[in-house]
């Protein structure tokens, strides 16, 4: 007669077989690699098929990067998600999720990979000496890239950023990187900065020009305008003096040109006017 221990052992031995019988199995299509730039944007279809479900299946939907995609819920066991013209921002981790009446959800994930593309960056940044500058780059593509900042010198050659002065700070997140420079130095900091995003599929970089203005820069146009004004005023004063060299340009003098030999006697002129009255 088998003992209790033996029966327990037998039960335990068959348990995996039993439970594996009840586990839902999902057939999912393979990972895809997008080549959006190659010109042929072939449509891509992701498929999932539920085989061997134990409890009653309720519905199915798709998720991308942890968020449910709208309008994908069906009650079918075989489900497809089609990307008709896949672009780089369609890449990511997709999951088909099956829900059941009285069992936890089951899912399978399919990775859609693409080389990174840089979608957001400033073309140029103009700041004054001593201020802080912030350069950034945003990307799409999956898996999330590794970021690197470099500075361009000459043609096509790069140097790494020299942080011996401790003024450079880099923050890297999944699809975003930021380079902050505090206390801009007009001698060493201006130049072309390049952010480079690379993942297992490919890499991309984009450039931002950093210009540092000196404190005195606006003085030059200001002095130029002042010079123009002084020249104009001199011209006007000289012109007025030539017309009436004996008169001090006085606001209340009559404009009427009095054609006479120059005389310093104001009274004379007014006598003349009164007489003609």
């Amino acid at each position, binding site marked *: 007669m088998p003992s209790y221990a033996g029966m327990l052992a037998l039960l335990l031995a068959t348990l995996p077989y039993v439970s594996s019988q009840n586990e839902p199995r999902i057939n999912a299509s393979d990972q895809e690699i997008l080549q959006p730039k190659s010109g042929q944007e072939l449509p891509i279809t992701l498929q999932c098929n539920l085989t061997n479900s134990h409890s009653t299946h309720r519905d199915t939907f798709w998720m991308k990067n942890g968020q449910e995609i709208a309008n994908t819920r069906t009650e079918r066991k075989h489900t497809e998600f089609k990307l008709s013209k896949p672009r780089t921002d369609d890449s990511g981790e997709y999951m088909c999720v099956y829900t059941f009446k009285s069992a936890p959800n089951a899912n399978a994930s399919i990775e859609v990979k693409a080389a990174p593309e840089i979608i957001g960056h400033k073309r140029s940044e103009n700041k004054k000496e001593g201020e802080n500058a912030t350069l950034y780059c945003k990307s799409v593509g999956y898996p999330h890239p590794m970021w690197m900042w470099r500075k361009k010198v000459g043609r096509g050659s790069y140097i790494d950023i020299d942080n011996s002065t401790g003024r450079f700070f880099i923050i890297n997140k999944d699809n975003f990187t930021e380079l902050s420079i505090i206390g801009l130095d007009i001698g060493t900091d201006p130049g072309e900065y390049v952010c480079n995003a690379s993942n297992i599929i490919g890499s991309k970089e984009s450039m931002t020009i950093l210009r540092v203005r000196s404190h005195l820069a606006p003085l030059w146009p200001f002095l130029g305008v002042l010079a123009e004004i002084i020249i104009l005023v001199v011209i006007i004063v000289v012109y007025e003096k030539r017309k009436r060299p004996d008169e001090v340009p006085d606001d209340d003098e009559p404009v009427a040109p009095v054609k006479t030999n120059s005389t310093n006697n104001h*009274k004379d002129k007014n006598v003349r006017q009164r007489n003609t009255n």
Partner: protein
Amino acid sequence: MERYLSDPPDGGYGWVVVTSAFFIMGLTAAVFKNFGLFFLEIQSYYDVLNSTTSWMTSTTIAVFHLGAPLASALSMHLSQRTVIIVGGLLATSGMIIASLGLSLPWMYLSVGLLQGLGVSFSWIPANSMVNHYFRRWRPIAYAIASSGECVFAMGFSPFFQWLIDSYSWQGALLVIGGLQLNLCVCGALMKPLPAAQTSIQDKPVLEDGRTSKKGTFQWSLLQRPELLLYIVFAILAAAGFFIPPLFLVPYASGLGMEPYWAASVLSVLALADLLGRLACGWLANLRLVRNLQLLTMMVTALGVVLLLFPVAQSYWSILVFASLYGFLFGCVVAIHVTTIVDIVGLEGFDSALGLFMLLRSSGGFVGPPAAGWLVDRTHDFGASFYLSGLCLVLSGVFLVLVDRLVKKKLKLPHSNTEATDQPTLKADGAHV
């Protein structure tokens, strides 16, 4: 030659005055119109709210209007030339102080008080000079001068943006301050006219040629009903004027238009404004109808266009309505100052201009908040256009009353106003 004593030159050096006034209006009004480009920079520099930065320009507007009678009075005592030069110095110093980027109260002092006073001291006498120097060609001369504001406003928009990008906002203000010093140059060109003609009960011609040009500020003009009613028109019209520009972009955005397209509507509006000013100045010069009648027609048409504005729902219809609005707005602006001469005559013009600017500002202050309240109540941006259209049509009613009163006055024998635009025989007898 005594022709300057009795007749405005109506040409000759007057065109130099018009050119100078063109630049003065550009360097004052156009700078102010484009000051909005500095708002974001100043706001982030001082880390304050949007409303705080817009209070700066509100102070400029307030100081401009309060300073208007002061500018008129001073230009009667000294001369327009002196006041404009002082105005140029004030405006420049305001900009230079602002460019230092000191604390916020200094910004209010510089941008608000100094710039506002400088603009007032330059703009008012320049207007006065153009009107004094012309009679027959007055409408078109004034229209050309006031178009300076439009031309410069269009040019300054990209120019200021470039200045801010290249030199930062402080550097840009410094350069603009230097440019405003040209107001002094323009002022130097404003040669004063000799004594304007006076009435029969003449003040005696004084020894050194300084005569009744040194008038006093005539507060008594307010007792004239025609001027009073004209000022009521001005208050209502100002309320109607200041509302649409503020609400045009939100209205367009509310219909789903993108910011770039909404901005292009404003550019079209500025261009239509310029064309309206020039066209109406030329039209007024033809003297087919009296200035007051022309003004009434334009104001009413403008009111009607605004009342119909909410009919526009698409980009192209908004563009059409905005061009019509801009054109008619330019027309009204071109003649509503020269009309003052028809009402009070040339010797009362300076005082009346000062009073006009001072009192109409109340409409400009009350209008936009009232429209804002209405829009909040009705949840419809179109309500602001209804309000401004209504104000303008109502103001037209007052214009009709003014026209009647002025016509009645003309029938009186001792009229010394220039309402008829006919040369009248003057007391001193001497004539060209």
